[in-house]
């Protein structure tokens, strides 16, 4: 920076001087100058400058020293620092040059207060050089004969000035040219030095303010040599498998310097160097035999050197060279283990023998094959099975028993000591205790507590537990003296390992003790998928499946169920990790819940998918508690209604379907002149056998139909019989309403009636005495018919059809009524008769069909009658619709009946033959 300012100052001064010259050579003459000219000042020193005016200016410009003004960089120096020495000389003094700046100008205040510059100087401020310190030198050998010497030093503080450093050196009688550093100020290299002569070396620093020298260093350059490392290193295998011979060339003459050496070596792949004892290589040499090496091992060698007496510097390490020792026989047998599979047979095992390849330092060469010997323990004297195997496993099928297995490894030189393994019938010895694991330094450490008995060695088995692959067993041997080891294998983080420790004894082995472990745990890959098993009003049973071992990534410490309503806070419930079901209680009914489940390892948890469910509106049994009483109440009401109706049936019947007199039961019907004798209506009785009659035992049937019922059915109607007898008592005698009359008697009656009918074809009046329906009180009505028109055939037919069985029965009644016998003894003949008749003719079948239909419509007998009367104008209606049912016409067509045999009823016949009989 100072250097820059100097240039600026110089430029300024040149400009000033140039101006002064111009002026002096032209209009104005130069009036003075400053001494000292361009001074270099030490920082912090004092400084005085003088401005000397020319005499010529005194007269010409009337200028004197008391008018001089000193300025530093256009700033006026305080007057206190001025001193007027005489009328032409003015001085200015600065007690500390640190306040000084460049340029320093001498100015004068001329007439008219016009300030004019007289002269200016550039001031350079800096520091003298410090004494260079810490001078040191080293001689680097660069070739066999060239030894440049480099010296370095501490140049000291910055001087703000151009400071030159020189490295000076000399012999007692000789001076050498100085070594001048290039581009640096703290080191210099002397291209060539001479050994065995004391050399005095020092550094001189100089600038405008002074010089400084470092302390002088007197040395023989041979004492500070850093030689080149030995070259052309070669490694040759010796006679012994544990020796390698190194040879090299030294690049420095023994006459110049005697050397000592360091030899280091390592095996390939090993980063740690071993070193030959220094005392073994402390003398000058060009070869060395390294002993104590491992057979058939590749070693890397490197060498360095320095002055024999240790004065100076070690060379760099030479280039590395490799060599391989020769083979030796294997030093130990391969570690051996087995897997016994006893699942195939009860009497034999499948034994998979496994052994590990020997480490190179144990194999001492290339293993050519393994010799496996299996000998039954029970017959040690017997012949042993021998196998030569190139691989490291052998599967044998052996009968159950105890065996001694030996494995020997062979290379070109010889055989290893045998490795022995006992395969016991059972692991009956003491196991290890307290197997534990600990991840440490990226490896999995397994520890155990040794059993009390002496253990020969331990076998540690482990395998990766996974859903996607089988448990592939890996193992390793450990000596019996240890109680912990690191697993030597590719142990992966976040994977579950099943580790088993077996103690091996001299006479057997102990059972294994297992533990599961992780090298490193992580959060589970996913959370459990929860779902509901059962949802109630206030509770829900949740189920889930355990995470697979591949998903766990660690030991599942606990589950947490998180559930919430749509707008509610989430509730967390911790759950034991062994469970797969949990019941959420105290839920709100008929509410949508979202539930999820988190599984936690030591490293954290992960949530499974959300599951939603809605609680039920009613709880268990609530619906039943409501529905059942309602149904019961309904049934009770219906039952009461039925009972009420039953009790009030007369009244209901009276109002709903009043009793309409049945013309067929009228006394005038008894007058029917023709009774078809061969119209055996009794066949219809056959159609109602006792057993089947219950189907048509409609309660609405008239009391006269009782004869169609079985006796059992009729029992409840005994009372009716009496009443009927009573009603008959009220009959007019024109015709009984009793059905108990014998058909035979009825036939005779009808004959009589026919006769009567023939006597008169018109009926003026008739008195009909009706029997009461069942327990109804018969109403005796005497009605008068003013009609002279005979009843339509269709009406009669219709009545037959609509009346169905009734009509038939009524016809029977008609016959019975004609018998005029006592009712009390007519029941039995009626039923007896029924039994005796066999339905053998087709007419009976037709009658049966008709009866069935009639039976169905019997309840509407009275109404049907009225209806039939209304429809009597339809003369061609052969089929009568009753309650929507239609008689099948083919029946009618298939069995056409003659006019005499028409079974329709008696009434049509009666009508055809003369209509109503006159009373």
């Amino acid at each position, binding site marked *: 920076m100072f250097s820059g300012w100097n240039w600026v100052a110089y430029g300024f001064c040149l400009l000033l001087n140039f101006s002064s010259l111009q002026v002096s050579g032209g209009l104005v003459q130069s009036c003075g100058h400053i001494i000292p000219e361009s001074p270099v000042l030490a920082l912090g020193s004092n400084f005085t400058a003088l401005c000397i005016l020319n005499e010529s200016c005194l007269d010409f410009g009337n200028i004197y020293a008391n008018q001089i003004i000193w300025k530093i960089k256009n700033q006026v120096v305080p007057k206190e620092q001025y001193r007027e020495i005489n009328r032409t000389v003015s001085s200015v003094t600065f007690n500390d040059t640190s306040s000084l700046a460049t340029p320093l100008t001498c100015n004068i205040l001329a007439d008219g207060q016009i300030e004019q510059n007289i002269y200016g100087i550039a001031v350079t401020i800096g520091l003298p050089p410090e004494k260079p310190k810490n001078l040191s030198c080293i001689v680097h050998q660069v070739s066999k*004969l*060239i030894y440049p010497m480099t010296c370095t030093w501490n140049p000291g503080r910055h001087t703000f000035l151009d400071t030159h450093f020189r490295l000076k050196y*000399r*012999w*007692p*009688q*000789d001076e050498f040219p100085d070594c001048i550093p290039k581009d640096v100020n703290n080191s210099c290299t002397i291209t*060539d030095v*001479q*050994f*065995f*002569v*004391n*050399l*005095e070396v020092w550094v001189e620093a100089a600038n405008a303010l002074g010089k400084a020298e470092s302390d002088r260093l*007197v040395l*023989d350059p041979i004492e500070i040599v850093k030689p080149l490392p030995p070259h052309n290193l070669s490694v040759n295998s010796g006679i012994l498998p544990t020796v390698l011979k190194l040879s090299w060339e030294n690049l420095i*003459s*023994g*006459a*110049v310097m005697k050397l000592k050496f360091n030899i280091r070596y390592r095996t390939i792949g090993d980063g740690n160097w071993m070193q030959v004892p220094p005392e073994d290589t402390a003398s000058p040499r060009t070869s060395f035999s390294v002993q104590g090496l491992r057979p058939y091992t590749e070693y890397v060698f490197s060498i360095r050197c320095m002055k024999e007496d240790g004065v100076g510097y070690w060379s760099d390490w030479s280039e590395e060279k490799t060599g391989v020792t020769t083979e030796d026989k294997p030093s130990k047998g391969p570690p051996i283990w087995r897997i016994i599979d006893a699942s195939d047979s009860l009497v034999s095992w499948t034994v998979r023998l496994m052994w590990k390849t020997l480490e190179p330092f144990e194999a001492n060469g290339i293993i050519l094959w393994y010799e496996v010997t299996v000998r039954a323990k029970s017959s040690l004297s017997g012949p042993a099975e021998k196998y030569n195997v190139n691989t490291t496993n052998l599967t044998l099928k052996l009968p159950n028993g105890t065996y001694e297995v030996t494995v020997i490894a062979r290379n070109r030189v010889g055989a290893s000591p045998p490795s022995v393994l006992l395969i016991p019938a059972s692991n009956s010895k003491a196991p290890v205790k307290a197997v534990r694991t600990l991840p440490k330094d990226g490896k999995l450490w397994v520890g155990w507590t040794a059993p009390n008995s002496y253990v020969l060695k331990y076998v540690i088995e482990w395998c990766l537990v996974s859903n996607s692959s089988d448990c592939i067993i890996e193992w390793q041997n450990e000596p019996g003296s240890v109680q912990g080891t690191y697993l030597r294998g590719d142990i992966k983080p976040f994977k579950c390992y099943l580790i088993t420790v077996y103690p091996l004894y001299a006479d057997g082995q102990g059972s294994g003790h297992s533990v599961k472990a992780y090298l490193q745990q992580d959060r589970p890959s996913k959370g459990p998928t929860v779902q509901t098993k059962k949802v109630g009003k206030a509770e829900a049973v949740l189920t889930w499946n355990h995470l697979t071992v591949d998903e766990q990534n660690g030991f599942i410490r606990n589950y947490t169920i998180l559930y919430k309503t749509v707008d509610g806070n989430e509730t967390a419930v911790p759950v034991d990790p062994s469970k797969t079901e949990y019941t959420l209680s105290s839920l709100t009914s008929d509410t949508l819940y979202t539930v999820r489940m988190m599984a936690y390892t030591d490293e954290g948890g992960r949530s499974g998918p959300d599951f939603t469910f809605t609680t039920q509106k009613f709880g268990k049994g609530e619906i039943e508690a409501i529905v059942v009483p309602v149904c019961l109440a309904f049934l009770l009401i219906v039952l009461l209604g039925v009972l009420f109706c039953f009790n009030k049936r007369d009244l209901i019947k009276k109002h709903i379907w009043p009793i309409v007199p049945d013309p067929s039961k009228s006394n005038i019907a008894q007058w029917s002149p023709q009774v078809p004798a061969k119209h055996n209506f009794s066949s219809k009785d056959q159609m109602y056998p006792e057993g089947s009659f219950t189907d048509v035992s409609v309660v609405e049937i008239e009391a006269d139909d009782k004869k169609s019922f079985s006796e059992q059915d009729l029992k409840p109607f005994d009372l009716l019989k009496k009443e009927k007898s009573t009603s008959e008592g009220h009959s007019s005698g024109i015709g009984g309403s009793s059905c108990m009359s014998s058909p035979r008697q009825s036939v005779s009656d009808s004959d009589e009636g026919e006769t009567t009918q023939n006597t008169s074809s018109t009926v003026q009046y008739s008195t009909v005495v009706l029997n009461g329906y069942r327990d109804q009180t018969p109403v005796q009505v005497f009605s008068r018919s003013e009609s002279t028109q005979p009843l339509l055939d269709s009406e009669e037919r219709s009545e037959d059809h609509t009346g169905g069985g009734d009509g038939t029965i009524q016809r029977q009644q008609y016959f019975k009524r004609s018998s005029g016998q006592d009712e009390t003894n007519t029941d039995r003949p009626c039923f007896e008769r029924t039994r005796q008749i066999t339905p053998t003719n087709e007419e009976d079948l037709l009658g049966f069909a008709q009866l069935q239909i009639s039976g169905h419509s019997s309840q509407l007998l009275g109404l049907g009658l009225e209806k039939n009367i209304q429809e009597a104008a339809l003369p061609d209606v052969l089929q009568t619709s009753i309650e929507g049912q239609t008689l099948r016409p083919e029946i009618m067509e298939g069995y056409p009946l003659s006019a005499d045999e028409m079974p329709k009823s008696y009434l049509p016949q009666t009508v055809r033959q003369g209509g109503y009989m006159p009373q």
Partner: protein
Amino acid sequence: GVVPFVALLLLQRRPVAGRALLVTSSSCPSHSLCRSNVQEQTRRQVALLNATAQDLFSLYLKCQGEPFSSESDELCNPSGVFFPAFRVNRTSERKEVMVAMYKLFAFLNASLGNITRDQEELNPMAKELLDQLHNTTKTTRGLISNLTCLLCKDYNIFQVHVSYGESSKGKRAFKKKQQGCQVLRKYVQVIAQAARILLPHLTPP
């Protein structure tokens, strides 16, 4: 290092009395550098020269080509060239040995300088030879420095008369090669003798 010795050679070619001047020890130059290790340094220097002399001579012959490589015995016979007398033995006084050594190596230093100069001119591409000539010349210069120190420090001798013989400068190339060959052959012989003689005198007590 050659130029000063050439000047010294020219200077010494004038008839100068070959006697040492005795001075007080305080007037020995750079006394601080004349340390106890100078004796050992001197012995190591002589040993170094002795160890490399034969190689230097062989390389020189090899680089000069025929007839030097095949007829070195005849061409390089040192009898025809000036070489300072080295008439000391193991029983000689140490001071006498030191002075003789000084004369010998002062002469060798000048002669090696001349040979190096001639070879730089005649065989500029013979780098190995030139390097060895340079290195040997440097060693002799260091040896002179040490001998000066020993003479001055032990015997207050700071000046010794040295005869240098005839310079090869201006001679023909063959003559330059032959003179160099003759000097180097004699050098091989004398340096071995010097090494043997000097050893007991420089062994630390």
